[in-house]
């Protein structure tokens, strides 16, 4: 695969629109819950509040990308609901099981995941094609994690498909994805809600949409066991990182935390309209303050 066009050099120029450093929308990891960001985006558009940069992590990168490409919220929702469906993880990679069970016989390396990623790659190719970060109307940043060093990697140029695929490389489920010679895994492993990227890129007001990873009600398989461990680590990392960035930022981080009365599973795509509505509701609650704040905060 040719990934040479995907760079991580922070000095590189990014998308066409200049960053004025005002409002950033940061969408953290959270599987289908990330659709709440579309509701938040709808509320901001309705109120005429411009978003100057979008940062996406893990499934949040799917939604961040469609927003940044300039689609209206309804189109974004249609595109995203076609992308993120349960059958994405329904194709086991049987060879991966054999490689795990008999590593000497079948060979084992870091390019390992239990699920075949052909379907999600095909879906993403259909949705994003060859579009790159340069096609984004709003500066877009997608985060992943370097598999070998654990560092956060901010992708800002190159093909969107590659950046998103790296950002959603859920440990154990999908193979890490190589971008620009670096092996990358899911962005949530380094920061589930990458507010720091928006701070570094000069945002003043940061709207952060984050979600805690759900805990298992019953641990009945090795997969659920691994998922539970992942949730424990991720949620503690989320709190530590969000606390640090909230205290370190010179201006304002507005946490938009939708309230979901309904239980939402990882691939409850059918609940996307409900999730979007809750995101819109949570954002709408913050709009009066956001308006007053934007009137008071000088443009960078």
């Amino acid at each position, binding site marked *: 695969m040719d990934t040479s066009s995907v760079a991580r050099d922070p000095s590189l120029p990014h998308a066409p629109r200049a960053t004025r450093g005002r409002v950033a929308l940061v969408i953290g990891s959270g599987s289908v819950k990330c659709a709440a960001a579309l509701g938040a985006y709808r509320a901001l558009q309705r109120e005429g509040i411009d978003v100057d940069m979008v940062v996406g992590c893990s499934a949040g990168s799917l939604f961040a990308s469609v927003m940044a490409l300039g689609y209206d919220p309804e189109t974004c929702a249609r595109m995203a609901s076609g992308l993120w469906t349960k059958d994405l993880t329904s194709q086991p990679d049987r060879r991966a099981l054999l490689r795990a069970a008999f590593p000497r016989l079948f060979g084992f390396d870091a390019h390992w995941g239990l699920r075949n990623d052909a379907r999600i790659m095909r879906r993403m190719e259909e949705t994003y094609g060859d579009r790159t970060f340069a096609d984004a109307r709003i500066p877009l940043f997608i985060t992943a994690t370097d598999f070998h060093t654990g560092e956060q990697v901010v992708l800002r140029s190159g093909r969107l498909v590659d950046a998103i695929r790296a950002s959603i490389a859920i440990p154990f489920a999908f193979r890490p994805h190589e971008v620009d010679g670096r092996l990358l895994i899911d962005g949530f492993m380094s920061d589930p809600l990458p507010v720091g990227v928006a701070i570094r890129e000069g945002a003043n007001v940061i709207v952060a949409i984050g979600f805690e990873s759900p805990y298992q009600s019953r641990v009945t398989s090795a997969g659920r066991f691994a998922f539970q461990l992942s949730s424990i680590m991720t949620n503690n990392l989320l709190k530590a990182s969000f*606390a640090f960035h909230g205290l370190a*930022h010179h201006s*304002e981080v*507005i*946490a938009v935390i939708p309230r979901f009365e309904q239980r939402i599973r990882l691939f409850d795509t059918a609940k996307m309209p409900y999730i979007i509505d809750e995101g819109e509701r949570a954002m709408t609650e*913050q709009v009066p*303050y956001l308006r007053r704040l934007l009137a*008071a905060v000088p443009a960078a």
Partner: protein
Amino acid sequence: MEITIDQRAHVTVVAVAGSIDALTADALVRAMGEQMHAGNTRLVAAFDGVEYTSSAGLRVLLATLKEARQRGGDLRLAAVQERVLRVLDLSGFTSILKCYPDVGAAVASFPSHHS
């Protein structure tokens, strides 16, 4: 944002109503600072009237908390609404701040001068 100060024996109750955010944080910083400079370092922030707190609000809480503790006192929260509690929890503040269900419990949590 409205701030009301109520002295209860050895504890100062600072009742806050409204939002604690970048636009209102300075008023709370001043109110808390005035209390501490007057020697009132055992503080209870009554949050039943707080609808929202942002990162700027959290920075005020942290600054007050550190100064109160440096002066031998403490800042404790009472009656935090669910919505605000979620922000405090997400930001790790519930691990460093003591929260109580009501003002009475928060006030009672401070030992008396003579104990």
